[in-house]
């Protein structure tokens, strides 16, 4: 654990409280709470590779793994263990709490590896929490139906598989078959194997299948990236429809424009923690500011290289940058960092 990672985390956490304090400004038909996430922690077990030692000292997400200076004997013993019985733990989500209400469309933003998708899957009940809990009123459906589909089989067959996987009965799937095909706009391609589809067609079919189930809580993970303008408009209409029927929509995307267009509220996640939670435009603005700062920091760090080996050099540089208040969207982190340093060792 380095000081750079650390002070970044600590002051992000310190600056922004969970939404209960900040209070989201309800935008449209916001009903009673539908989902409560209480101090959620997710820990992954990761098999394989020498990742353990590298990960320990590397990404901040892996902080759960104990960091200690190995003695010579230990190093000798563990020189082979990177390949035999290599198991490391990744602490992907670290203490997130929020409340979602009926009729909200919530965007989740954050840089790569910040825990967005993990958070979404945990909220959908797909990854068991290490600690903390998730309370849900209704059945959440993650728009991740593609994992159930089989590319060798026809679209027709896949609509059945996907629909059943989402918990519909065969009759319901039959009833909605035409609607799904129409929404996906794939015409007679539905009778061909899915592996013959273009990526846009496959993505449209996936979205059509998963949103056909009419879930109370719809969760979308980067699904709208592919697809033409007409399809984007149709998906926005579908999302609005879910919201109008007192449902809740979660949307993970890297496209801040998509988030701003579709969501009423945004959660900003960074390194497994909630940085900011509020109305879409406010958070989006802050996030954009952060990304710009991040990009600047990266460009200047590139001189020293950004590979893992060169990372320690870069980190030192980042510390310097952080001290000038450049790398993070907050100030006053110098004191926080000083407070936090002892806990790292």
């Amino acid at each position: 654990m380095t000081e750079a990672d650390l002070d970044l985390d600590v002051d992000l956490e310190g600056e922004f409280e969970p939404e209960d304090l900040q209070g989201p400004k309800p935008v449209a038909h916001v009903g009673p709470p539908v989902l409560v996430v209480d101090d959620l922690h997710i820990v992954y077990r990761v098999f394989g590779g020498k990742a353990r030692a590298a990960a320990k000292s590397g990404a901040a997400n892996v902080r759960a793994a104990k960091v200690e200076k190995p003695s010579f004997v230990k190093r000798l013993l563990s020189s082979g263990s990177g390949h035999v019985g290599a198991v490391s733990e990744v602490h992907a989500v670290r203490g997130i709490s929020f409340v979602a209400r009926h009729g909200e469309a919530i965007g989740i933003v954050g840089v790569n590896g910040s825990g967005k998708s993990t958070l979404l899957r945990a909220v959908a009940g797909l990854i068991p929490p290490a600690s903390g809990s998730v309370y849900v009123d209704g059945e959440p459906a993650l728009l991740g139906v593609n994992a159930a589909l089989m590319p060798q089989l026809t679209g027709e067959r896949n609509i059945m598989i996907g629909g059943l996987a989402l918990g519909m009965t065969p009759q319901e799937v039959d009833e909605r078959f035409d609607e799904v095909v129409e929404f996906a706009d794939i015409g007679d391609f539905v009778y061909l194997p899915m592996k013959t589809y273009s990526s846009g067609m496959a993505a449209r079919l996936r979205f059509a299948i998963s949103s056909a189930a009419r879930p109370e809580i719809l969760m979308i993970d980067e699904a709208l990236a592919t697809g033409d303008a007409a399809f984007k408009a149709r998906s926005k209409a579908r999302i609005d429809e879910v919201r109008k029927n007192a449902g809740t929509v979660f949307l993970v995307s890297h496209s801040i424009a998509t988030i701003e267009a579709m969501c009423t509220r945004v959660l900003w996640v960074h390194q497994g923690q909630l940085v900011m939670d509020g109305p879409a435009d406010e958070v989006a603005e802050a996030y954009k500011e952060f990304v710009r700062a991040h990009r600047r920091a990266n460009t200047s760090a590139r001189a020293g290289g950004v590979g893992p080996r060169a990372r320690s050099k870069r980190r030192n540089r980042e510390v310097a940058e952080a001290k000038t208040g450049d790398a993070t969207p907050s100030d006053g982190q110098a004191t926080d960092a000083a407070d936090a340093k002892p806990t790292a060792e």
Partner: protein
Amino acid sequence: MGVRPPLLDYVRDVFSRWAFIRVLGTSTAYAKNQNNYLGQLWALLNPILNATVYVLVFGILLDASRGVDNSIAFIVIGVFLFRFIDQSVHGGAQSIAKKTNLIRSLHFPRAVLPMSQVVSLLTTLVPTLVVMCAIVLLSGLVGSNEPIPVTWEWLLLPCIVALLWLFNTGLAFIMARIVAITPDLDNIINFVMRFAMYGSGVIFPVTKYAEELPQAAQAIVEPILEYQPIGVFLYVARSILMQEESFPPSGEMWLWAVGWAVVTLVVGFIVFWRGEERYGRD
């Protein structure tokens, strides 16, 4: 969310997903043989070629069929049915481990996965059973073998296959849990199954070999070989199809088969259910 449901609710949940299990199973079976010229024909060719190898090696070259008149029928029945068990164990072992993606993206009782795996194997088994019966009939016409009559008893074959299906589902549950928690064990299964194959008289009557052991060892080994589940299922299937003195129809063996099927299924289901909330975490 992410908490294990009570056992009864879980059972109900799994039953309500029966359509999903069926469609997922048959689709997997179909998709598996989609990528070559002969397509679904391979589902038949595979076990036939497999059986041919064993008939040639053990039936003809080694002549290991002690006390069995029709060694072709003996080996074919053994190989075809054991294949179902073997693949269920392998399929069950991988059903959770290989579907982490699906588990991490959709919410459904995880028991669906091993169950659909076995259903998928069952759908490929049914046509091969017809081939198996045909080979058994033809084998009666070969060489010195007596012709094998088709009797009313043949109608019992679906019953023993159904029991075997329940048994395999139970096995798949247990394997799925074990391998999902400890992926390393996947590598051991192969050896265990090889041992099970030679130990349960799939290609030669192992109980006849056991008679050659010293008295003390025989007392221990023989009942184990005779009443262990794979041996029981094979015995019953052979007693149905082959009219031979070495396999007289036995009500006792049927009871054993029912017992093994029910016990394995129930135990497997409970074992699997107890790990429900852990699947997909790693």
